[in-house]
């Protein structure tokens, strides 16, 4: 089998063949006549019109061959379609393409083939017109030409056929479209009869097709619509291309439907092409809408509501019956003529506009806007109470709800105001107010206010008198709760809060007292009784209750408590207790003071007697019992002293008095009395006794140790002791009767003695040093105390002088004075020095500062670099001056107090580092958390700068590292400054803080020595401490503390 041979455009060729819809069609005479003609011309028994599809060749027409098709791969035609010209095989047996072809080797035994290709207009070869013979043969040129021509003819036939098919398809589709359309489609002739109608006519109008076609269409049009229809159709005659109109058509059942027509004439035939739509349904809908609207109107008109619709500008559009009824105006009077303002009072409109201005935060004019602005802006119905003025000028309250009316595009096209006469409600409300007033009145009289709190809305309401009690003006609901809480005493507010929670939990009633604070810090005591209230489902929805001003009652109560307390207190102060003993019940009662004296907690009376007896000193119990019994039996008054023994072993002395209590029959039923703590008095007596003894002892001792003289009020000696004699070298006899201060030291009788006398004769003690002369003329010093003894009139009647020999001390004093003088001189010197230094140093410093300022002023266009250097210069000058001032302060450590300043240690460290540490060769780390605290800044600065400058000075590493850290200890600030320098050997840790003298290698360490000694001194003066953590070659860490 030979491989099939295909044209290059095979797939397009197949599509082209397909478009002819020719394959497997019935035989047609036109084609058969061509094959017969071909057979005749070529003188062959067989002629075929062969068309090649994918798999086969199919014969549209054949002469002399029984088959209708053969497989394509066996066909001769597959070769014939490859070329343009007639393809001829003269003897198939001799042709290698066909020699073994079954059509050649077997039936129909083909020897000769000639095929003319069938070219369509688009370059595709659809098949061939071919002639076949069983004998070898050769066509003449004329025969070939004829075959070619016949092939053209076949193609023409094919093309014609194709066009016919297309036309038919289109017509069919159009037909279907018309047939299936729901719209009524028809063609009317120029003579005004239906030419063709579609089935929709039947569906809509009910007539069969035949009943319409050929009938004049005017027969079906509603008589009233004929004129209109004619008019429209005439327009077409005048040249309009399309007309649209409505008219009513009669259905077969006699009803009319409304048809909406579009009609166009055919330009040539003049036939009318018409499409109509049944709009009856839409019309009906419209009607229903109108009816509904009317009904609604009716309802509204019949209602008790006034309904007023307005234009945007307020012009009344609608004014319903309700409105007419209410206001006395008729719709005719107002619609289109007036705005609803005619119904309102100007005052109310003005007021409302002011409210709105406030509420909306923009100016609302007192006009129509006052009614509608909210509805318009917020897009919500706006309800308010207004007063409507009737036509007859009477008024009534109305609740007016205004809504914005919107059109389909959502634009506001007008407003609708619905009003309800609320006269009745108002009346009820008024009655309610009246009854409330009545309630308030009664509450006022009872000093009671009532309240109610609703959980859901968090709303508190108060009766009028509640406000009065709390001295508050009536408040809006939302403000009341906080105003209420503000009034409550801060200590009591938690009680109130708790109560609320509890009532909700337990559902039980409550009664509490609390205080409120009124202006001027007055306090009112409030008694509040409350209970929960419930809704119909028995759920607690709030609390209600009453408040009562119970201040007066509380005060009375307090007074009672106070007076009792006063009694207790006075007993306690006087250390008096009272008691009462009931004989029959063997029953003892004590006052609080009694308990206090006995230092006992209050006890039940049955235990008290026993406890009482246990406290009594065991030596005194029997005596007391005896006395008691005596009083109980004889009725004599009771007076007794006894001691009680307290748990700590101390003793109290008590004195008690008692009286028998008698009943009406004169029988003794008990004793009542008081007991007084006389411990102090008793002890004082004992002390006096002891003192007296002591004084005698002291006097004896005094005689031994001191010089004692006694003179009378004139100064005449009454007594001298042995000491006086020995120091003065006089004998007693030589002294007594002499004037004390004469002769003895006549050189001092001047002002000095006068002063002494002035003091002691005034009853005051004189103390001081006196230089006296001995008998031998030498002097001695005494320190004397001269005590005047006063008589009952307060006048001195004698003077006792007690003196100590201080001669030696006086001598010591002299050298001490010298030392003191040195000290003072040095002190002064240092002050002067410090002053001079700081003053003298400041003078050139100030000069430098001034000069630099002058230079800067003189050079307005100074280069930036120079300018900034001047700034820098002045900064240093300032710093230097501060330092000078600072060290001046420092020099006064211990003498002048340095003011504490709030110091930020971090800032201080930054400054010190900037000042001391060179920018290159060092890395400084300052930690976090440094405190800001009050301290003597200059001192702390000294400490830091000394330590840090040491770290810099002794650094021996390429990069010196300095680390400043802070740690807050419980009572101290702890600072540490760590370096990576050479470190300090342990044996020097103490010594570095000592003054420079003790340190070896002075040249090297002198500055450290003094610096650190200052550091240590400052820190220790502040109450802190300093230590070093260091080993040689491992850097040093100076850690110091300052108390917080």
């Amino acid at each position: 089998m030979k491989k099939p041979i295909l044209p290059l455009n095979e797939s397009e060729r197949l599509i082209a063949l397909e478009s002819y819809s020719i394959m497997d069609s019935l035989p047609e005479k036109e084609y058969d006549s061509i094959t017969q003609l071909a057979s005749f011309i070529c003188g062959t028994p067989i002629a075929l019109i062969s068309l090649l599809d994918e798999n086969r060749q199919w014969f549209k027409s054949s002469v002399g061959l029984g088959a209708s098709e053969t497989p394509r791969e066996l066909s001769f035609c597959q070769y014939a379609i490859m070329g343009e010209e007639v393809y001829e095989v003269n003897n198939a047996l001799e042709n290698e393409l066909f020699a073994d072809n079954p059509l050649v080797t077997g039936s129909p035994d083909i020897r000769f083939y000639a095929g003319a290709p069938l070219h369509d207009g688009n370059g595709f070869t659809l098949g061939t017109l071919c002639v076949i013979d069983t004998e070898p043969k050769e066509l003449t040129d004329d025969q070939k030409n004829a075959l070619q021509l016949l092939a053209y003819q076949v193609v023409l036939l094919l093309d014609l056929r194709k066009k016919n098919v297309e036309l038919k398809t289109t017509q069919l589709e159009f037909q279907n479209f018309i047939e299936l359309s729901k719209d009524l489609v028809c063609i009317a002739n120029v003579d005004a009869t239906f030419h063709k109608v579609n089935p929709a006519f039947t569906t809509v109008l009910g007539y069969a097709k035949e009943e319409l076609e050929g009938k004049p269409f005017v027969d079906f049009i509603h008589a009233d619509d004929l004129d209109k229809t004619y008019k429209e159709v005439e327009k077409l005659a005048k040249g309009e291309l399309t007309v649209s109109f409505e008219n009513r058509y009669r259905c077969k059942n006699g009803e009319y439907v409304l048809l909406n027509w579009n009609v166009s004439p055919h330009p040539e035939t003049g036939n009318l092409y018409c499409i109509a739509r049944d709009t009856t349904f839409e019309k009906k809908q419209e009607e229903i809408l109108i009816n509904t609207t009317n009904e609604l109107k009716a309802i509204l008109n019949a209602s008790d509501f006034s309904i007023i619709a307005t234009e945007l500008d307020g012009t009344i559009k609608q004014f319903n019956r309700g409105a007419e009824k209410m206001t006395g105006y008729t719709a005719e009077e107002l619609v289109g003529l007036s705005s609803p303002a005619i119904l309102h009072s100007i005052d109310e409109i003005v007021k409302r506009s002011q409210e709105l201005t406030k509420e909306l935060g923009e100016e609302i004019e007192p006009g129509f806007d006052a009614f509608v602005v909210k509805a318009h802006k917020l897009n919500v119905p706006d309800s308010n109470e207004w007063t409507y003025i009737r036509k007859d000028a009477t008024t009534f309250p109305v609740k007016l709800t205004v809504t914005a009316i919107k059109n389909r595009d959502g634009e506001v096209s007008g407003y609708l105001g619905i009003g309800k006469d609320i006269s009745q409600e108002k009346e009820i409300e008024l009655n309610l107010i009246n009854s409330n007033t009545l309630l308030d009145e009664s509450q006022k009289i009872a000093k009671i206010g009532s309240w109610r709190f609703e959980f859901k809305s968090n709303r508190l309401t108060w009766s009028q008198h509640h406000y009065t009690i709390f001295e508050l003006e009536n408040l809006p609901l939302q403000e009341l709760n906080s105003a209420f809480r503000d009034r409550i005493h801060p200590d009591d507010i938690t009680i109130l809060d708790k109560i609320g929670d509890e009532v909700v939990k337990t559902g039980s009633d409550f009664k509490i007292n609390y205080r409120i604070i009124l202006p001027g810090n007055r306090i009112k005591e409030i008694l509040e009784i409350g209970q929960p209230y419930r809704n119909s489902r028995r759920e607690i929805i709030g609390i209600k209750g009453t408040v009562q001003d119970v201040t007066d009652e509380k005060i009375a109560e307090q007074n009672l408590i106070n007076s009792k307390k006063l009694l207790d207190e006075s007993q306690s102060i006087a250390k008096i207790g009272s008691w009462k003993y009931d004989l029959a019940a063997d029953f003892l009662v004590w006052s609080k003071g009694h308990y206090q004296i006995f230092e006992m907690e209050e006890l039940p009376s049955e235990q008290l007697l026993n406890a009482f007896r246990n406290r009594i000193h065991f030596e005194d119990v029997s005596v007391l019992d005896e006395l008691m019994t005596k009083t109980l039996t004889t009725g004599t008054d009771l007076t007794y002293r006894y001691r009680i023994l307290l748990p700590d072993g101390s003793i109290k002395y008590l004195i008690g008095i008692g009286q028998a209590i008698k009943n009406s029959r004169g029988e003794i039923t008990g004793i009542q009395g008081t007991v007084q703590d006389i411990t102090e008095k008793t002890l004082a007596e004992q002390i006096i006794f002891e003192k007296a003894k002591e004084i005698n002892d002291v006097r004896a001792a005094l005689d031994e140790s001191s010089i004692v003289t006694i003179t009378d009020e004139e100064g005449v000696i009454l007594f001298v002791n042995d000491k006086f004699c020995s120091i003065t070298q006089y004998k007693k006899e030589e002294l007594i009767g002499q004037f004390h201060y004469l002769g003895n030291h006549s050189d001092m009788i001047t002002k000095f003695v006068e002063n002494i006398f002035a003091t002691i004769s005034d009853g005051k003690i004189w103390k001081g040093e006196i230089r006296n002369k001995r008998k031998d003329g030498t002097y001695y010093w005494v320190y004397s105390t001269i005590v005047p003894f006063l008589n009952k009139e307060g006048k001195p009647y004698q003077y006792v002088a007690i003196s100590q020999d201080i001669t030696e001390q006086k001598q010591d004093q002299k050298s001490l004075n010298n030392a003191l003088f040195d000290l003072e001189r040095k002190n002064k010197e240092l002050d002067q020095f410090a002053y001079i230094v700081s003053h003298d140093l400041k003078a050139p410093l100030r000069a430098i500062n001034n000069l630099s300022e002058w230079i800067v002023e003189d050079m307005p266009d100074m280069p930036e670099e120079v300018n900034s250097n001047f700034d820098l210069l002045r900064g240093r000058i300032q710093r230097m001056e501060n330092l000078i001032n600072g060290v001046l302060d420092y020099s006064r450590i211990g003498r002048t107090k340095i003011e504490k300043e709030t110091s930020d240690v971090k800032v201080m460290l930054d400054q010190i580092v900037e000042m001391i540490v060179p920018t290159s060769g060092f890395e400084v780390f300052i930690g976090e958390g440094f405190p800001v605290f009050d301290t003597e800044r200059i001192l702390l600065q000294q400490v830091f700068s000394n330590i840090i400058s040491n770290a810099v000075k002794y650094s021996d590493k390429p990069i010196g590292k300095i680390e400043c850290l802070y740690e807050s200890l419980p009572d101290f600030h702890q600072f540490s400054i760590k370096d990576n320098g050479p470190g300090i050997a342990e044996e020097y840790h103490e010594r570095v803080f000592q003054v420079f003298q003790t340190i070896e290698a002075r040249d090297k360490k002198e500055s450290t020595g003094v610096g650190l000694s200052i550091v240590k001194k400052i820190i220790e003066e502040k109450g802190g401490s300093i230590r070093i953590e260091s080993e040689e070659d491992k850097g040093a860490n100076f850690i110091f503390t300052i108390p917080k």
Partner: protein
Amino acid sequence: MEEIERNYKKELEVLKQEYEDFVYIVSHDIKTPMRAISNIATWIEDDLDPSVGGDIISNFNLLKNRVGRLESMMNGLLELSRVNRVELEFYEINIPKIISESIETLEDKENVDFLVINNLSNENVDTLGKKLTRVLNHLITNAVRFNNKEKKEVVIELNETAEAYEIKISDDGPGVPEAVKDKIFSIFYTVNSKDVVDSTGAGLAISSKILQVVGGSIKYETRDTGGSIFTFNWPKTITLKI
């Protein structure tokens, strides 16, 4: 009684210590910003266009002068603070020799007649050589510097007792007014304004301090013929009084 006295003495010690501390702090701590001021002044000078007005230049020169003075004062103070701490080496010196050396180093010696009267039998002494040199330098320099005469005369007289050398330096200068002669040993005190003779007023204070440290003494007298006489005692055996 002794207790109180001891306390006084202790307090006195503390006070002395404070004095030392104060001088130390002033001279050391203030040196840092002082250096900065001096440096900045130099930078400004480098950057300053020399063609700016004469006023500015003269003001700036004045500024530099004040910076210099301040530095000298600082140095003086530093020296004062170091008197009892540095240069405490004992070695043998020859007193006339150090005097002539001191004269040699003077700047303005051409117009001065120096007369040294040497009554010493022990010219060589083992003492705090540097300190003695310093005192002599200060006194001799002062004798010349404050002398406003064209031709100046300075007499140095050397005497000795068993315990001390007594050195008297007199000049024919203006002398010190009677009213202020107590103040001249104070630091930074100058009889005239520092602008008249550029001086820091530290020399006498330092000298006085040195003599205090070595246990000697110094006094001032006015010469009959006008001029000053400074006489100081230098103990032969030194016990440091620090």
